[in-house]
């Protein structure tokens, strides 16, 4: 809201008619103020923006004050050292990013600096220092260096830095000790580090504690060599991602504001006594992808959980680790949407006694299962269905590979169809009563008219009272035996259906 005097001034101007006829025909763009021209330039790749600097003196100053420098839109990326012509310039000065930064209007701040480059550490450090001097807010850097390098400490003291992303290609970089890392970063809200060598500090227990990184909302750690123990407890943290930490043995995450957690390809599968402890009651999304199983998973039941995705690294789970699996499922049992990757189905299929005790997913409305749909998966699937009484949408994503043997549905035995699978499903009718009562949408991808999926589809059609839609799609697989498929399809359309509203679609 304007002040009274400002508003009054504006009103005075209303009554003075501006001379609009000065630039009669051609140059209408000069009338636009700098901020609007910048607005237009923000939408263009940096090469175009830099080109406009030769248009006129004004445009040159527009370029030198342009706040968003995203060099990743340059394609191809210019070489760091210029050609033989410039013998007077040393390598450092001919580095074009440094050149751009040096040519800038001294008083204009940089908002975003983003680049990907192959360079030495001293050059990297110099560039970053220059950016910090221009009060950069978002610094997003991907580097290819010759050797391991040390974390550029000059960023720590910056008061303007809100977002810092440092991604290194081979080999990687080292972090300073916790006391140094937590001594600054006063305004940092998002930190993303990739490819860190932590062999000299395998235990990061006090770097991301409750009293450090007070404004940090998003943290992402990727590929941390040598990281064995990690504790994250930043007070303001909302989003935590941890991936490719293969040597991790212990993980402790706590945060009252944490809403999203993703842990992928972590944990050392060969270590005994690995553990996970998550204390984040407000978690809404949990993605647990391809992690080796720990011996001890401690996670409170997450009542705000909306979406969860579980993927296990191995199918073969020792009896000792089954409790962890059980704890994990139990913690995620209040989810509304759940995705289970193929190894989960295998684990649940191979351990029948455990499957019996599978926790109820009482809020679950949407379930997506990835499975090879082998014969022995059927009881596992049945037990999952039994645990989802309120399910609305079921998506079955069948992984068709050459390893899995799947019997084709025998169309000739249609009338006398009483395959084992069918008999099994029929035997589960009472167990699956609630599930069948609520199920509305079924989608099967990778549907190749094999016995397993046809039996299931038939069963669901026969008993699904609320069924509205069934979509049977081949997905990415090539359709085979077109004529036979047609016959099977028409047979399927002739099944007895429990729900008169149901509709089948074949893709």
């Amino acid at each position, binding site marked *: *809201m304007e002040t009274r005097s400002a508003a009054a001034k504006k009103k005075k101007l209303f009554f003075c008619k501006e001379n609009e006829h000065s630039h009669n025909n051609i140059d209408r*763009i000069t009338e636009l103020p700098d901020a*609007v021209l910048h607005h237009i330039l923000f939408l*263009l790749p940096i090469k*175009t923006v830099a080109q406009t600097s*030769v248009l006129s003196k004004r445009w040159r100053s527009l370029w030198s004050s342009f706040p968003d420098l995203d060099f990743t839109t*340059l394609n191809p990326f*210019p070489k760091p050292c210029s050609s033989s012509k410039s013998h007077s310039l040393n390598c450092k000065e001919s580095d074009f990013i440094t050149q751009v930064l040096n040519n800038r209007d001294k008083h204009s701040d940089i908002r975003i600096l983003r680049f990907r480059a192959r360079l030495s550490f001293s050059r990297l450090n110099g560039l970053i220092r220059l950016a910090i001097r221009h009060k950069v807010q978002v610094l997003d850097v991907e580097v290819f260096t010759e050797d391991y390098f040390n974390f550029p400490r000059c960023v720590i003291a910056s008061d303007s830095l809100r977002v810092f992303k440092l991604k290194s290609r081979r080999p990687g970089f080292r972090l300073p000790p916790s006391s140094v890392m937590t001594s600054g970063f006063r305004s940092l809200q998002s930190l993303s580090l990739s490819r860190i060598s932590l062999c000299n500090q395998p235990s990061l227990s006090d770097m991301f504690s409750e009293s450090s990184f007070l404004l940090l909302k998003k943290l992402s750690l990727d590929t941390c060599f040598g990281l064995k123990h990690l504790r994250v407890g930043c007070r303001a943290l909302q989003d935590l991602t941890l991936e490719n930490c293969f040597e991790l043995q212990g993980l402790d995450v706590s945060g009252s504001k944490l809403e999203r957690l993703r842990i992928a390809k972590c944990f050392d599968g060969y270590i005994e006594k690995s553990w996970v402890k998550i204390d984040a009651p407000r978690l809404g999304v949990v993605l647990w992808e391809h992690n080796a199983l720990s011996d001890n998973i401690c996670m409170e039941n997450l009542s705000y959980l909306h979406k969860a995705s579980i993927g296990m690294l191995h199918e073969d789970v020792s009896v000792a680790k089954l409790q962890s699996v059980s704890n994990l499922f139990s913690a995620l049992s209040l989810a509304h949407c759940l995705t289970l990757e193929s190894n989960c189905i295998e684990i649940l299929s191979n351990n029948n006694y455990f499957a019996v005790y599978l926790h109820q997913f009482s809020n679950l409305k949407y379930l997506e299962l990835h499975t090879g749909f082998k014969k022995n998966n059927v009881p596992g699937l049945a037990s999952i269905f039994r645990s989802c009484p309120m399910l609305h949408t079921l998506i079955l994503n069948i992984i068709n590979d050459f390893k899995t043997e799947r019997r084709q549905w025998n169309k000739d035995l249609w009338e006398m169809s009483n395959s084992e699978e069918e008999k099994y499903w029929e035997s589960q009718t009472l167990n699956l009563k609630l599930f069948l009562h609520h199920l509305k949408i079924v989608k099967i991808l990778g549907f190749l008219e094999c016995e397993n999926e046809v039996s299931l589809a038939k069963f669901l059609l026969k008993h699904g009272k609320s069924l509205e839609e069934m979509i049977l799609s081949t997905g990415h697989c090539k359709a085979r035996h077109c004529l036979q498929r047609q016959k099977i399809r028409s047979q399927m359309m002739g099944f007895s259906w429990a729900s008169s509203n149901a509709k089948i679609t074949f893709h």
Partner: protein
Amino acid sequence: MSTSTDNNASITQESGPSAAVQDIQKKIVVRTADGEVFNLKEEVAMEIDIIKTFFQEDSISYETVMPLPNVEGWEMVKVIEYCTKHVELKHKVDGYKERKAFQALFVQNLSTKSLLALTNTANYLEVKYLLDFLCQAVSEQIKNKDVDYVRELFGVENDFNDEEYEQVKAEAPWAHENLNNDLH
């Protein structure tokens, strides 16, 4: 939205003529540089921040005709057209396709000169979403085009001498490289 007179009848004392003025004014009147007068629906007028501030700041009566000396008549027509559509689509759940179709038509017959004038007006009138859209439209016109094209399109006069020009070019040689080889 309404004038300073309180609507709450149980509190105020009705006092003759001034009470009559208190009825809800739904139209706002503006006059553009070429003398044209426009009657705007209140909800559309309030989309234009400069108008909103003018009337709300000092609780000015809607009887006042607001002068807009920096805005041409045809520009006002276009602004009203866009804001009216925006207000209409606000209440629609899935208006994406409709909005896209409308936007395409909106700029279809506009010359670059008019587009730039309209952008300037949108900035002056303070209609953020219209400004965003017009800036996008302008950027589309110069995307992947070389400097000479841009200069011609916008009619920017070169105020560098030859020496200065080469100097500026040398400040970012990477930007002027491969201009003819660009595949995009």
